[in-house]
């Protein structure tokens, strides 16, 4: 129980919290409510890294390491280009999309050359997302990074409001926009990379949980950040329980998240729109 179940529970809580909080942060700092945790190419990088490791070896350690490493490499490329040209939001997002697309092409190449009987199913299965591989021995990097990142965002949560202002306004308030944006996006990226490395790509949580949290507590990051963390952790724990128990074999978390999560949130969203008479 303690050896198998507890690490998995912790992993679910961490991954859910990380994806949700980083989604909230990306939406705020990139001034775009439609972006999610995967926007800057981190997840595509991690997916490519994992696929590469599965192609070369079958060691779970290397899969996690490569996923984390290539996820971070994506954000470093985005930053290197962004910083060179003034790190405006548009440059960061465009570079992120390009890096993401390039990684996807590389991933396609790996799938194409992978052994279709053995390696290809492993890659595909990994990409669908799941926490079946969470053990004490591979969980500690995620735990350490999560504790660090969540603490960071809980402390900086009010300042995030100011960072959602336009560059001109934030500068006029004396804030070093470039440095703050860099630091905050980097920590958010660490959270995403460490999560994706252990869970595979789980979509929508980073997009919808922040919106749900905003609907409940409002847009003030002082309350939005704790709410996103709580809701994200709780929802992923529930989804993982369903994924383990609903059928005789495990349902991949990425699929389940989409199948259950999206209709549920669509209902909530429509109810919210009805109550408020539109989106304000």
């Amino acid at each position, binding site marked *: 129980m303690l050896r198998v179940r507890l690490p998995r529970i912790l992993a679910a809580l961490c991954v859910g919290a990380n994806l949700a909080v980083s989604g909230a942060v990306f939406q705020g700092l990139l001034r775009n409510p439609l972006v999610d945790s995967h926007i800057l190419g981190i997840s595509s990088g991690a997916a490519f890294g994992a696929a590469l490791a599965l192609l070369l070896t079958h060691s779970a350690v290397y899969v996690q390491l490569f996923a984390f490493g290539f996820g971070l490499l994506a954000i470093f490329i985005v930053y290197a280009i962004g910083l060179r040209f003034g790190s405006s939001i548009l440059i960061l997002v465009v570079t992120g999309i390009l890096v993401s697309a390039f990684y996807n092409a590389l991933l396609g190449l790996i799938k194409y050359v992978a052994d279709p009987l053995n390696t290809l199913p492993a890659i595909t299965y990994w990409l669908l997302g799941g926490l079946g591989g969470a053990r004490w021995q591979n969980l500690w990097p995620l735990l350490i990074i999560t504790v660090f990142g969540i603490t960071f965002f809980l402390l900086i949560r009010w*300042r995030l409001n100011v960072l959602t202002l*336009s560059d001109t306004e934030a500068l006029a*308030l*004396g804030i070093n926009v470039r440095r703050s944006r860099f630091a905050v996006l980097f920590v958010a990226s660490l959270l995403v990379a460490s999560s994706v490395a252990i869970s595979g790509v789980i979509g929508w949580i980073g997009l919808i949980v922040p919106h749900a949290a905003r609907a409940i507590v409002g847009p003030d990051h002082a309350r939005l950040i704790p709410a996103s963390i709580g809701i994200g952790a709780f929802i992923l724990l529930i989804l993982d329980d369903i994924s383990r128990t609903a059928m005789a074999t495990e349902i991949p978390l990425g699929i389940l998240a989409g199948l259950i999560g999206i209709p549920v949130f669509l209902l909530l969203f429509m109810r919210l729109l009805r109550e408020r008479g539109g989106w304000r």
Partner: protein
Amino acid sequence: MEMSLDAIDLSYSYIPGTLALRNITLSLDGSGVTFILGGNGSGKTTLLQCLCGIRPPNSGSVQIDGRDLRRIHPLQRARSIGFVPQIHEPVFTYSVYQVVLMGRAPYLGPFSSPQKSDHERVAHALHALDLWELRDRPYTAISGGEQRLTLIARGLTQGAKYLLMDEPDAHLDPRHQHDVFTRIVDLAREGFTFAISSHSPNNALLYGRRVVLLASGRLIAQGSPQEVIAPKLLQEAYGMEFETITDASGLRAVLPATGKRSQS
């Protein structure tokens, strides 16, 4: 020493070789409301952004109480100079209170949250501008005039003595323009110094104490509204003819000279 915010021989260029501002020298010295007039692209917004320190000049300097702005820490600077942009477009629907509270950012470290004293400053500013009743309304759901006042309240919360406003009369109907400018004039009497860019010479006549006139990045005139808002100078700035309307108290308004145009 006299408090003042000065531009000294200030030049600024966005693209190397093309000056957006050339050799501007002017002084905001507790002189109430100074209007900055000039056509589109004449450098009004750039001048305001240089004056508040977010655009370091290519040559010349901006000095506050005799100290070069570049030598002052941005947080320190933000406690003296507030900038009110023409458009404040929040991505998320922050309340009026939250928007004003952001004015405390120059006093709080990145890892701190606002304390009781910060909230007291916000309450004070909101009461000063009669916005207290609106404090929980979303910023996006209040009128354009109330939005300008909210941003002025943010400037007050910032502790700024100098408030630089980019076209606060844009997109406002006459009543809201009058409301906003009446507030500004009141605050100027209390000791705040305003620099306001505008496309309306008549607002400068009504509410300004001094007027600065820009044309293609040059300062072509500065002085009292009665001096600067003259057909000849305005023609130089806007490239069209104006006629004046005067009464016993002097110049009341300027209008485009339509009669002359129809003759030609």
